[in-house]
């Protein structure tokens, strides 16, 4: 299968996503420049991390105006699997593909470290290979990962089982100390109503090789490969 890796001028995890999907998973991946208007027939889309347009205004705020986002939206509307990682998640929020918004981390500083997340839902293309309650040790690296949605929106998200990943302690318990940024309901990742678009703050592509310290991110990327190649 072929991944499209969207490249905004300030993307900086685009190479990492490309490396993980090609060198590690053995799939094909193509960089798609943000000024383009089609996805070259890709089977899945990765909106990678970084600082899409410098993000001096608000993370991801300008990226939604990039020409390629029209194609991403159409692809998503037709049910194509789309994952936004870190800044990519922020871009999907700003583009309206996922609900809610990001605030600055409650500690006010950027945080880069390993955290744990618990898999809450497995009926998305990016978590199908995991089991509910599985704890993944993944890196984060962000200054604005404090997910927020108003109470009624949150209620809807929970009712529709759209929270895919939550920050947790190593044993899987949800406690406030294990929440690195103050996200409501410890939300680390979520999906849209159709469940084909997923956004997550942790970086699965940074945890795909034993040499780097964790392979817990593989299940995220392998899930979509399995979902598409076995279909």
């Amino acid at each position: 299968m072929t991944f499209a890796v969207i490249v905004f001028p300030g993307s900086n995890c685009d190479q990492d996503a490309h490396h993980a999907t090609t060198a590690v998973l053995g799939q094909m991946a193509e960089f798609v420049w943000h000024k383009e208007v089609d996805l070259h027939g890709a089977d899945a889309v990765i909106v990678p991390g970084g600082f899409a347009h410098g993000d001096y205004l608000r993370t991801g705020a300008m990226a939604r105006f990039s020409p390629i986002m029209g194609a991403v939206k159409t692809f998503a509307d037709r049910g194509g699997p789309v994952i936004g990682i870190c800044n990519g998640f922020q871009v999907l929020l700003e583009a309206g593909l996922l609900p809610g918004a990001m605030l600055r981390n409650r500690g006010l500083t950027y945080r880069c470290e390993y955290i744990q997340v618990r898999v809450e839902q497995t009926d998305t293309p990016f978590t199908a290979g995991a089991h509910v309650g599985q704890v993944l040790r993944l890196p984060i690296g962000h200054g604005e990962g404090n997910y927020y949605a108003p109470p009624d929106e949150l209620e809807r998200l929970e009712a529709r089982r759209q929270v895919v990943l939550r920050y947790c302690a190593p044993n899987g318990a949800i406690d406030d100390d294990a929440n690195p940024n103050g996200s409501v309901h410890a939300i680390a990742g979520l999906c849209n109503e159709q469940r084909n678009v997923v956004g997550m703050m942790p970086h699965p592509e940074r945890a795909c090789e034993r040499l780097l310290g964790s392979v817990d991110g593989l299940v995220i990327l392998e899930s979509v490969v399995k979902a598409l190649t076995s279909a």
Partner: protein
Amino acid sequence: MIDDQTLDRHGLKPDEYDRIVGFLGREPSPAELGIFSVMWSEHCSYKSSRVHLKTLPTEGPQVLQGPGENAGAIDIGDGLAAVFKIESHNHPSFIEPYQGAATGVGGIIRDIFTMGARPIALMNSLRFGPLEAPGTRRVLQGVVAGIAGYGNSIGIPTIGGEIAFEPSYAGNPLVNVFCLGIARAADVIKGVASGTGNPVYYVGAKTGRDGIHGATMASAEFDDKSAEKRPAVQVGDPFMEKLLLEACLEVMRTDALVGIQDMGAAGLTCSTTEMGSRGGAGIEIDVSLVPQRESGMTPYEIMLSESQERMLLVVKKGREAEVERVFEKWDLHAARIGHVTGDGLLRVKEQGRVVAEIPNRALTDECPVYHRPMEKPAYLDEAQALDLDDLARRTTVAANDGLIALLGSPTVASKRWAYRQYDHMVQTNTINLPGLGAGVVRIKGTNRALAMSVDGNGRYGYLDPRRGAMLAVAEAARNVACAGARPLGATNCLNFGNPERPSIMWQFGQAVEGIGEACRALGVPITGGNVSLYNETDGRAIYPTSVIGVVGLLEQAEHVLTRCFEDSGDVIILIGEGTGELGGSEFLKAVYGVVAGQPPALDLARERAIQDLLVELAGAGLLRSAHDCSDGGIAVAIAECCFETAGRGADVAIDALGAPTVSSLSEAAALFGESASRVIVSARPALVTEVLQRAAALGVPARIIGEVGGARLRIAVGGRMAVDLSVADAEQVWASAIEGRFAKQVA
């Protein structure tokens, strides 16, 4: 006629002015005076340091590019080159910590990609006043946030470094930043201008009035008026630099480029003269073609602006459209501002009218060079005297308390608070996270990895500049070897006071001699670096501080080692031996508030053998961990081996000191003395014999001192239990010493 006040404002001496008139055969124009002032500033010309730096070893079969270019380069096999350099941004970081540090990072990154290398790692060496001193927290927070803000945004991991605290840096912090990139060895690009008629392009941010005379500012001392110099600090734009980085690397792949250089200190002036000078050519530009952010800028201001994120390119004639297309893709505008000439002159025009015309060589090769007088400082004999018995009469501390005091000392304590703010994992190459030893990144497409470490010790430099500098080289190389990598090359950042004072110049001369001797002995040639002088505030100089960055190669990335003990039952081995040297130690400072004595002795042949042994043992897969003994001696080193291992303990017994060094502080000396060339390694029990045999074969002392296990850290000295602490409690002290001071304000 130019008066003394004008000269003073330009940092030029009357005799230097006479030389300028001599070169030109006339009085300089205002623009010309400005150009001379920045090019002849200490920062750009190295006029005080040059005669000393020439003595450094810069050659070796692995060296692809020595000093003189934007950065140095070494051969790392597979047709690849590691391009790296360290640079200071001390003065701007004191005046405006966030932007000063951020633009320091931006500058060193440009130096690396200018050579055609993709930057893959950043490190930094930071020094501040005591954490409890007023102002330190503000400067520390600003500097760390500035480094994070720039590096994180541009997507280059900051993989480690060091942070130290000493009163001497309270009014003059040190911010030394290091960057390393990878290029194909055959494609390394240089900063040369050649080929008469080739067009000269300007790319990047527009030129504003920021940073005018930044280089001159960096060549003067601080006083209470320094805050007024804030307009001389530039503002960084990492997004612009990210565009420049990607666009320049893309242009370099086209083969349409003759040379390229970033506009750092002294901006357009320095880049045009240096490129012309290296290529034996001249450059003619018209400042009215330079993209400008403000209206009404004079040629003087345009030539001296240090606006960030700007590059100067010389393009092959006929290939202009190709180059312009790449920059347009990245929404950058490449402006043609002039061309290469054959006359060796820097010619600056404003709307066709010549406003400056200076021979390049007058600005570069023939700038003033000073053999400044040197004199051993008066403080030295007194500072080197140390009476341990006298200290012991004042007070003594139990070993447990001494260790806890050291672990809670900000210089020794965990720096997680800082490096957690740095994206240290982007690019997915980082295989040793910050704080675990040297920074290590794998090289994609190969089995190899690069290890790097930046080290210095201001107290050692103060007590003996020569030995202090040697110890810094040894420690940086040893840290690289502890990760399992063979040290291959070095870069230096020399931070000193006012060179016009003979005592400072003596310190500088001694330090350069020491670096040269150590680099020769350890096989790590200097490939470039930076000198920062005039680090003084109100007439008080910083400790003479030589910071050394060493880069080494691991043949097999998976053999990389960290400091952390891995498994209960593993055997702990001490490589090297200690003689209980407490001179200049963290212990004397933390417990007695004393900075005195002689820094530890250094046997370079022994040091080399130990590093060779470490590389051999790691390469044979015989070790589980390796950690160098530095600040706080063997006790702190063993404690650190237990930290961040989920509470793994150690049971260790070391010898009491032999007769010649016995004093009332003997036990402390054995535990906390900082004798050089010592490493704590651990190995599986079955492999211990082979480790010891290989050590013996290289003539390196090595012996078993204990075992990993339990939840306590226990160290006996001469058969008497001296240290006995819960690892969890000790780790808490170490982990929270810095973080705890910042936690309150975010709760």
